Structure formats: C-alpha cells, structure tokens
C-alpha cells in the first residue's frame, strides 16, 4: 500500500519556503491573534463586572500587549504588501524587495513599541 501522505502540519512547516512563507504563517498567526483579542475584548466590555475585569486583566498584561501589538502591526504591514501586489500584479516580480521593505518598516516600529510597553510595564 502507498503511504498516505507526508505533509502533516509540522512536516509542512519544515518546507524551506524562505521569506514569503514565513510572512504567510505570521500573517495567519497575527490574524488569529487579533481575532481572539477582539472577541475577548468585546466580551469583556459587554460583560463588565468581575468576569470582565478578569478578562481585562489578561489582555492588559504587558506580555499579551506585546503579542497583540505584534499581531496588529505585522498583519497590517504584511496585508498592505499583499494588497498592493494583488492590485498591481506587475509589481510581483519585485516581491523579494517588497519583503525586505516590509521588515525594514516592521522591525524598527515594533522594537520601539515593544520597548515603550516594556519600560512602562516594568517601570511602574
């Protein structure tokens, strides 16, 4: 009998897809992360009271804030790259450069924000 298939979830992650595949995975993580955040946030605001405060306590933790800022910023910048390439396919041959630009924008902005969040959280 033939082997069923050899592309389970973790095998798939091992494929050497380089830059764009990484951004794809991070884009999904970012989107899912924001989805979880927004849902819990709305629930918290809606419920308020003890339950609401408990949930608030989770996402106001600095670790969660860094995570959610990562999600939003990366998803946003990467999404803009995808949108531009999709609407102007003639730019697609320059996709490698597009990814460099993306990281060049993302890394400083995120570092700065993460630094601010950390100093605020650990300083107080």
């Amino acid at each position, binding site marked *: *009998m*033939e*082997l*069923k*298939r*050899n*592309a389970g979830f973790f*095998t*798939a992650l*091992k*494929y*050497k*897809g*380089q*830059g*764009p*595949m990484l951004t*794809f995975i991070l884009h999904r993580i970012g989107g899912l992360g924001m989805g979880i955040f927004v849902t819990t946030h709305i629930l918290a605001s809606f419920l308020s009271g003890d339950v609401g405060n408990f949930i608030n306590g989770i996402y106001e933790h600095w670790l969660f804030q860094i995570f959610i800022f990562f999600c939003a910023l990366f998803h946003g910048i990467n999404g803009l790259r*995808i949108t531009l*390439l*999709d*609407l102007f*396919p*003639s730019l*697609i*041959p320059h*996709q490698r450069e597009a990814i460099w630009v993306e990281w060049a924008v993302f890394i400083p902005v995120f570092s700065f924000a993460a630094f601010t969040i950390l100093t605020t959280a650990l300083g107080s």
Partner: protein
Amino acid sequence: MEVTLKVFRFNPDVDKKWRYETYKLEADPTDRVLDLLERVKGYTDGSLAFRRSCAHGVCGSDALRINGKNSLACKALVRDYGEKITVEPIMGLKVIKDLIVDMKPFFDNYKKILPFFINDSPLPADGKERRQSIEQRERFDDTTKCILCACCTTSCPSFWASDDYLGPAAMVTAHRFIFDSRDESASERLHILSETSGIARCHTVFNCTMACPREIQITKAIGELKLAMVTGNLE
C-alpha cells in the same frame, strides 16, 4: 568531494514505515543530484525508485524535495547544495515507492481547468493561421513554459492542506489560455477558477514561484487571473 546523500525510502512491498537511508559517495561539484541517485541505484541499491527522463530540466519527471525545497533533480547541482544533501519526495501526494509519488490528483486538477485551446469560430477564409500580434503572443509567453513537473503545486501550503485545491500548475495553464487572444473560453475557465477550491485558496505564499524550475512568475500569473475576474480585462 565526498557527499553524504540522505534519501527518503519506502518500499510498499516490504516496509510498513518510511525511513531515511544515507549513502556516501564521491562527486564533482558539477554533478547533478540525479547523477548521484543514478549511481546509488547502479552500484548500491537497485531497488531505489525515482522517475527521470530527459535529465536536463525540460521533461519534468524528477521533481523532488532537495534539502527541504522543491527542485528538479537534474537541475540541482551538487555545488549549490553542499556536502549534505537530503532528497525526499514532493509533499502532499501519496508516496508509492521511495521518491515516486502518485501524480493522479495533480493531473486531475490540471484536467479540471479545460487545459486545451478552444475556438469554435470559423477559421480565417484563406485557411491560414489566426493572426496574433507580437504583443498578444508575448502576453502569455511566461505561462507556456510550464512542464507540469508539480514542483509548484506540491510546494503550496493550500495544496498540502487539501489536494482538492486546483493548485498553481492548473492556474498557470488557465493563464496560458485565458490570456491567449485566440482562445474563446476565458469565461468558462474563470468560472472554474472562482469555485471555492479554486483561486481563492491562493494566499500568495510565493513558494510556487520560488520552486519553479522554469522560472515562471506563477504568483504573478495567478494575480493577473484574480484581477481579471474582478475587472474582466483580458489584455
């Protein structure tokens, strides 16, 4: 130089589970990975199974995953991969034996897209060729290069998730016909592409473009198809 070749092995007649086998052999930097496999098969273990035919990158038989990335074994030179080379079958298709996978889902997807020229209008009155300008011919030149090796489709996360997905190769073929000024079935093909297992499953991961041994700008072709579906512009 001495090369350590690690090869995915699975023989359905004997094995229950797949394994890797390691071979050490002398190789020139300009040797193809295919040459190494041939030598292993010739001298060490004749039961090693893989497909190959033209051996210079135009027939598309020997699509394999080499050091983690899809490529044709006959276009992969030892000097580009170094002393440790891992060869595995392409992902997302059933492994029949060693490096040979079941290509049926791949070709089934290809056939779904009406992969043939359709023009039922009468021929030109003189019986000669249908005229086409140099620019019109150039429009779909890139996607005529496809050799159906499956490097692209089997590097696509959407295809790994489910082999119902048409896959990049089928879309490259769709592009080749949709943007051919002589073809008349663009609309039918766009409708096939618009199905849920169609072009919506492309998430611009670019694995296909980077795996393509013919250097087709696959993601660009797919992008043009997506835009054509919205704007209707086939120029």
